[in-house]
């Protein structure tokens, strides 16, 4: 017997248990303000670390005079690049100096560091450092960065250390990473030649910041045995441990990272910067050193979503079917590639412009370029947000050229089972057709009754209004990520205590572990406790992120549940079926809890590869054609998400992702002028407010096909990329003017209308 969606027997019962809303184990402490984040922690005797940064985007360091700074009262250490020469750090490629010794490559690059007894003393010491910089010609234009005569920003990148493998070759020294995706590309130009319609377009996207409300913080504490304890906001603590060890030539086993509470992530908490300076200062002074990043430093000098220029060219046959597609993606990687953990050093989503479509002939050339700007890193849906804005805007232009509406064009071209998608890959059970069918049904139901007519306006709705709707579709992989270990004890009362080094940055990893164990063993969730520990007290994992956590954590929990059940099954009488009540009443466990462990390795697990979530979004809006102001009346998103483990958090991810994407597509932009970030706090880097959030409807497709426990997929990086192009397409539908650049601000809408009239 199945539950109607394919799950059978125990699985169906477990899935039924998962329908109840979850109780997050971390919630009470957080709501009460009792969670101690890194910035809340007090380490007696900790010194204050601070850094002097470059005011120039590209310059040679002639000299650094620290003599006066070092003699000031309360100053315990002053370091320069000369003290840390050749010490570079990064998540994959170690290309960023802890402190620069010869050249600075962006405004915010670090030249000197101070440890002092007080914050004020550290600030005074920084002010007393004299730096002589010789300006060099900067490289800001990614269109010119890999030109033959472009200034080379890294003299000898071949010497940079690359973690866990060999760095793929790049075509130019100013290229951080290069991806070439081809499918039957030998016939590319011939296909364009025979196409009935060819559309070419160029799109631009800006830098965004993840805008996590907890800035990065760290405290590095030297240990009596010569080791280091690093309190950190890094969501991948084992990876950070390895990076610190690689930078300073230390044995990773002597380093403990404690990242047990993180206040927001949105993709950016896998990259640490201050930890490396703080380690150097702690080693120099023998004392603990703390560094707390300000929001201005966060926005101006940490890592950001890559700005892009994306050129797309697509050929259609006479029926409006995609014959051939070519994409040139250029991403501004800034001064260093070290913020990216992926082997190619190209954000994976960069090839996603037409991911949800069948594309028979394909070439995608994606490059990340070094420039004299703030480094590009990972922000929720890295690469996808940019590529999908371009791709789904382009699709609407293709539909118009083919004489089709956007929905019909998408239905005609959606990728199906066995077909190659627009990223050159196949899919396990692609659901593009199904999400579009749900959109079609909703559009049919709505008929001539557009949404939002009675939405209260903040001020009177006046002026000429143009109404329109637009849509977009996306697919995003369910992530992989090596081994995921869980250790547990079970006591005589049947209380399971799981020990893990995996942190929960708000995504719900610990709740996933708890609920899957409880559901699989048919016990109350309160009988499962999750204890999060430092890197020294649990086995390593790759950290949360990359849309893999629910997949990995749920399968590891399922494995652990099986081992717990197996332990009891081996000891219970053959005629006694396992339940936890039976198990505890049989007194098989004495005063000492039993210890068991679970493990899941997604790289080697059968059937774990090739899974994607599909989602489609429709936006109905009106535009004040005098002011360009948007009024979004309705957002519908249809999501193919597999079995839902944490219903409340899941809905939060879907809706929260939409709001995140709405902000990044309509208002958020790190404005940069001559290499300097101008939007240096949250008053100018505007985030969506409550009043900016439109009505949102969610339709979940009932599938159980994910690689996670009971068919779970992922939810965190799905909807934020699809809402932006849907808004852009709705604006084009309403006004007849297409915006080819994010964010979709009122002033850009006005300018586009002026240009078209």
């Amino acid at each position, binding site marked *: 017997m199945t539950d109607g969606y394919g799950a059978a027997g125990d699985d169906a019962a477990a899935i039924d248990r998962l329908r109840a809303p979850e109780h997050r184990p971390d919630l009470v402490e957080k709501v009460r303000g009792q969670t101690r984040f890194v910035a809340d922690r007090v380490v007696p005797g900790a010194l204050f670390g601070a850094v002097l940064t470059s005011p120039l985007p590209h310059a040679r360091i002639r000299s650094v005079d620290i003599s006066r700074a070092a003699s000031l009262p309360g100053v315990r250490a002053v370091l320069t690049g000369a003290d840390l020469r050749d010490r570079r750090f990064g998540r994959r490629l170690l290309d960023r100096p802890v402190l620069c010794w010869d050249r600075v490559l962006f405004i915010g690059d670090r030249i000197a560091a101070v440890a002092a007894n007080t*914050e*004020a003393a550290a600030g005074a010491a920084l002010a007393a450092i004299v730096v002589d910089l010789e300006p060099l010609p900067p490289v800001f234009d990614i269109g010119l960065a890999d030109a033959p005569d472009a200034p080379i920003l890294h003299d000898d990148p071949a010497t940079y250390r690359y973690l866990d493998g060999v760095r793929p070759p790049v075509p130019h020294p100013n290229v951080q990473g290069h991806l070439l995706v081809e499918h039957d590309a030998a016939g590319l130009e011939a296909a364009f030649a025979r196409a009935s319609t060819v559309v070419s377009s160029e799109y631009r996207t800006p830098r965004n910041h993840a805008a996590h409300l907890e800035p990065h913080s760290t405290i590095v504490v030297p240990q009596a045995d010569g080791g280091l304890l690093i309190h950190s906001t890094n969501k991948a603590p084992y990876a950070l441990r390895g990076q610190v060890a690689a930078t300073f030539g230390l044995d990773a086993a002597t380093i403990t990272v404690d990242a047990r509470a993180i206040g927001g992530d949105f993709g950016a908490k896998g990259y640490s910067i201050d930890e490396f300076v703080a380690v150097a200062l702690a080693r120099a002074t023998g004392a603990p050193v703390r560094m707390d990043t*300000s*929001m*201005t430093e966060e926005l101006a000098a940490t890592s950001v979503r890559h700005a892009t220029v994306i050129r797309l060219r697509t050929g259609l046959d006479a029926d409006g079917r995609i014959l051939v597609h070519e994409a040139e993606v250029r991403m501004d990687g800034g001064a260093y590639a070290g913020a990216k953990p992926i082997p190619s050093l190209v954000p994976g989503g960069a090839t996603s412009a037409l991911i949800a479509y069948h594309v028979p002939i394909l070439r995608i050339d994606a490059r990340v370029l070094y420039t004299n700007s703030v480094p590009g890193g990972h922000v929720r849906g890295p690469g996808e947000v940019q590529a999908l804005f371009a791709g789904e805007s382009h699709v609407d232009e293709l539909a118009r050229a083919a004489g089709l509406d956007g929905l019909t064009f998408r239905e005609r071209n959606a990728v199906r089972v066995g077909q190659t998608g627009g990223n050159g890959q196949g899919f396990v059970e692609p659901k593009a057709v199904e999400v579009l069918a749900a959109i079609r049904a909703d559009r049919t139901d709505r008929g001539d009754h557009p949404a939002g007519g009675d939405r209260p306006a*903040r*001020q*009177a709705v*006046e*002026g000429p209004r143009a109404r329109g709707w637009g849509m977009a579709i996306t697919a995003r992989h369910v992530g992989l990520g090596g081994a995921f270990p869980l250790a547990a004890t079970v006591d005589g009362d049947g209380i399971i205590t799981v020990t893990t080094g995996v942190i929960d940055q708000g995504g719900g990893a610990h709740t996933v572990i708890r609920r899957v164990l409880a559901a699989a063993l048919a016990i109350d969730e309160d009988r499962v406790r999750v204890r999060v520990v430092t890197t020294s007290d649990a086995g390593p994992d790759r950290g949360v992120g990359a849309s893999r956590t629910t997949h990995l954590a749920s399968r590891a929990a399922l494995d652990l549940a099986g081992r717990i059940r197996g332990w009891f099954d081996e000891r219970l009488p053959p005629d006694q079926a396992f339940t936890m009540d039976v198990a505890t009443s049989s007194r098989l466990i004495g005063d000492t809890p039993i210890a068991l462990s679970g493990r899941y390795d997604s790289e080697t697990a059968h059937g774990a590869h090739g899974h994607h979530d599909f989602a489609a979004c429709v936006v109905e809006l009106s535009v004040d054609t*005098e*002011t*360009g*102001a948007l009024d979004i009346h309705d957002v519908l998103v249809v999501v193919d998400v597999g079995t839902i483990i944490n219903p409340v958090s899941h809905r939060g991810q879907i809706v929260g992702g939409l709001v995140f994407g709405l902000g990044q597509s309509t*208002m958020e*932009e*790190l*404005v940069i002028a001559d290499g300097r970030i*101008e*939007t*240096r*706090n949250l*008053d*100018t*880097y*505007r985030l969506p*407010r*409550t*009043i900016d959030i439109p009505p949102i409807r969610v339709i979940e497709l009932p599938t159980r096909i994910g690689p996670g426990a009971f068919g779970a997929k992922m939810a965190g990086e799905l909807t934020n990329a699809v809402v932006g192009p849907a808004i852009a397409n709705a604006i084009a539908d309403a006004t007849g003017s297409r915006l080819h650049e994010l*964010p979709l*601000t*009122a*002033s*850009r809408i*006005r300018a586009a209308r002026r240009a078209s009239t």
Partner: protein
Amino acid sequence: MTTPRILEPGDIRAAIELLDVHAGTSALLAGGVSWMLRQVRGEALPPILLSLAGIDGLADVAVVDEDLVIGAMTRLVALERSALVADQAPGLIEAVEAVGSVRIRSQVTIGGNLAAGVPRYDPPPMLIALDARARLASPRGAREQALDGWAPGLPGTSADEILIAIVVPPRAPRSAARYRSIDGLSGGAPEHAAAAVRIDLGEDGTIVEARIVSADASAAPRRCGPAEARLIGRIPDAEAADAAAALAVASATAATDALRTPGALGGDDRPAADRHELIGVATRRALLAAFTDLAAGPLGAGARGA
């Protein structure tokens, strides 16, 4: 960074004395958000801040000798809910409601908004349109100063003066006041264009007095004299609104952006012509709303009289 000491005098006299005793080292804790932002930006704060929160009567709203008197410590949310303000100055409610969110309006005081504001704040243009006055107290006694010419920091006041109330004169029998703001973003910077208008009709149905105050993010709000003059003697109709709006654009174009601070709080790097075009839109919409109120008679949202 040193954290300022907060002093809380119990009455205005004590506050004036403390300002005198700590002259040069103290400031009024008015506009707490502004102080917070200065602190965030690393700017030095005065060693002593005087809070007026403990002084009775500073948060009262009352009609005194036909004037509407609004205590400087009145929170914006209280203004929104005040029956007296709804009756005497409904246009002010419209401007106040444009400020931030309920959460913010529950903390912000009208005095702080005026004393420590930035050009793009919403209430000042409407208060200017209503011919409101600032009531100030100092060792020399009390005085009033017109808010026309307002800019952040209340120019024309001295360091020992405390803003204790805003005085709004009584409305004409057939009068309407309306506020329109257009908010958005441009190049990452908040863009803002706003217009506050007040229109008084004579017995013959023509306009006898007009106030048109425009504002944008780059300069203090300013009255548009030519636009006001163009309306006098005219019937309130769309043609009059268009003409006045065009003159408001011209006034904005001519005005010096004295407070233009690109990239800073309140900065706006949009091309001036674009900003001024939005001022024209806001002016025309505010005027049309006021005209509609006047045509609707006593039930109009921002109007009074028949």
